[in-house]
């Protein structure tokens, strides 16, 4: 009895007294200040991009009137529409490849019993720690030998070959949470493994598939070094390359430069805001069990 009351007391204390202490308000204050610091560069970006040209260097960060002139200028200075189309094209094919092949491989590692599966999977995970810079030069030479420089093949093909250990890991983790009875009954009905993967496991894995679809789309959209190495023809440029070219040609035209940066960043920020729970889910699936 004494123990129980003691427990009640202390639980009550930790539930009521602690979170409302001075420390709690201090923590909240620090959090808000930190958030302001993080948001300040974004605000700075937006405000600069909406300023009239003669006000960009003004001390006042707020424009006297808001104008979209910088956005118009950015479009006329650089063929942003072409770049956007290119980026979109590559990102969609990249995403399709990652979703298809990483789920195939992930299913293999999650559900099919084959010789050497566990050590091989650990090996897949360990390749996550391989520095990408090491294969930069030899992979470039491979593509050059195939005469495929200045094409999108080098940016797309790796996505269709498993897409990388991160996606394989994520899909495997998710497949392992699906109960096995469904597969069993399908197998008794004579379904092939490929059909089970496509018609049973994939529809049940929509959250995980959405997560890797978003991550892989974003990976391709944000990729800079890949297009930088493989693309030199301006008409093939992606948005990041276009923005880089813009910097080197119009380095101090801050207004249009910020407008262009905003246009490159905006789709990803919207994607994140819309699909936030898939980001968190992907992290829960991978980050915790690693």
């Amino acid at each position, binding site marked *: 009895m004494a123990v129980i009351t003691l427990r009640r007391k202390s639980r009550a204390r930790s539930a009521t007294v602690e979170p409302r202490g001075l420390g709690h308000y201090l923590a909240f204050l620090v959090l808000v200040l930190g958030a302001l610091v993080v*948001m300040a*560069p974004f605000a700075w970006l937006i405000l600069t991009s909406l300023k009239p040209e003669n006000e960009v260097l003004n*001390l006042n960060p707020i424009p006297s009137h808001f104008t979209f002139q910088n956005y118009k200028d950015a479009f006329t200075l650089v063929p942003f529409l072409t770049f956007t189309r290119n980026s979109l094209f590559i990102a969609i094919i990249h995403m399709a490849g990652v979703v298809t092949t990483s789920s195939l491989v992930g299913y293999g590692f999650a559900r099919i019993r084959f010789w050497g599966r566990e050590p091989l999977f650990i090996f897949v995970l360990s390749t996550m*720690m391989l520095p990408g810079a090491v*294969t930069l*030069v030899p992979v470039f030479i491979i593509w050059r030998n195939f005469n495929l420089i200045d094409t999108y093949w080098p940016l797309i093909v790796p996505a269709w070959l*498993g897409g990388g250990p991160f996606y394989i890991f994520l899909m495997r983790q998710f497949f392992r949470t699906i109960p096995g009875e469904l597969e069993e009954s399908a197998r008794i009905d004579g379904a092939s493994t490929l059909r089970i993967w496509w018609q049973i496991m994939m529809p049940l894995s929509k959250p995980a598939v959405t997560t890797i679809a978003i991550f892989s789309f974003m990976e391709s959209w944000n990729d800079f070094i890949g297009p930088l190495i493989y693309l030199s023809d301006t008409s093939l440029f992606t948005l990041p390359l276009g923005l880089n070219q813009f*910097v080197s040609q119009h380095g101090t035209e801050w207004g249009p430069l910020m407008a262009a940066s905003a246009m490159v960043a905006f789709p990803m*920020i919207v994607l*994140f805001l819309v699909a936030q729970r898939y980001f968190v889910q992907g992290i829960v699936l991978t980050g915790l069990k690693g």
Partner: protein
Amino acid sequence: MAAMSADAARKRRPRITRRRVMENVTGYLFISPWIVGFLVFTAYPMLISIYYSLTSYNVLRPPEWIGLENYHELFFEDDRFLTTLFNTAYYVAFSVPLGLVLGFLVALLLNQKIPFMPFWRTVYYLPAVTPIIASSVLWIWVLEPNFGLLNRALALVGIDGPGWLTSPAWSKPALIIMSLWGVGGGMIIYLAGLQGIPQQLYEAAAVDGANSWHKFWHITIPMMSPVLFFNLIIGIIASFQTFTQAYVMTGGGPVDSTMFYVLYLWLNAFDYFRMGYASAMAWVLFIIILVITLLTFRVIAPRVYYEFGSERG
């Protein structure tokens, strides 16, 4: 009864082995995309780059065998190589630990009962979803010495800010500050981890009279140590390969003060067309990262707490 089961076993055995073989074939077919990808884009390139690193190779003419000359030049003749090593080590030594601590701190703050938690989480995570090229361009403007946001903010408190990207002494700190702006990427992982810690642990500790500090030190830290450790390793590996910020924002300058390892590797390969030399650099980088990763494992892994009986494999 016994005869029947033996008979059944005899009947079953060949079927099982055939199924086993089939399952093995299916399994390897399913993982074949990864196997092909690994062989073509990782294993073969790594091996062939050992050969390239022993040659002089400008892509246009076939590689010419020169033995260990590239490595000799790297270690004994190329002062720039040492500069890039120093710059990279400087950057890693500050940005990784600071980023880890700061990201963890934000996650701890967010993990309290705080109003509008999803909103604050979103705010802190935004830099991590911003394309690196866009944040680089944005930060060129933030760090601009006369009209940039940072120096204007410093001026408000009476500090005459340095030239940042135009100053050899301040260019690396500038890039480190910029990297700290992106700590939200790690924060979201820590936050997920913190929310996965069973509440009973804290309650049990409270029963035993533990204060907040005890709970933090004896529950939060051990429970989070695998996540922190994983992020430390990934952070070290990624920071050693910092490229885009330096390429876009400074081009390695002023006076090579932001010439990072991979930027110099990139220049050798794609500007000077010294593929052999760049391959030697790649292998040296691989060894450096391997050694540092192994050292980190040796020093820190014994202190990492893995929950007993946690689901593995």
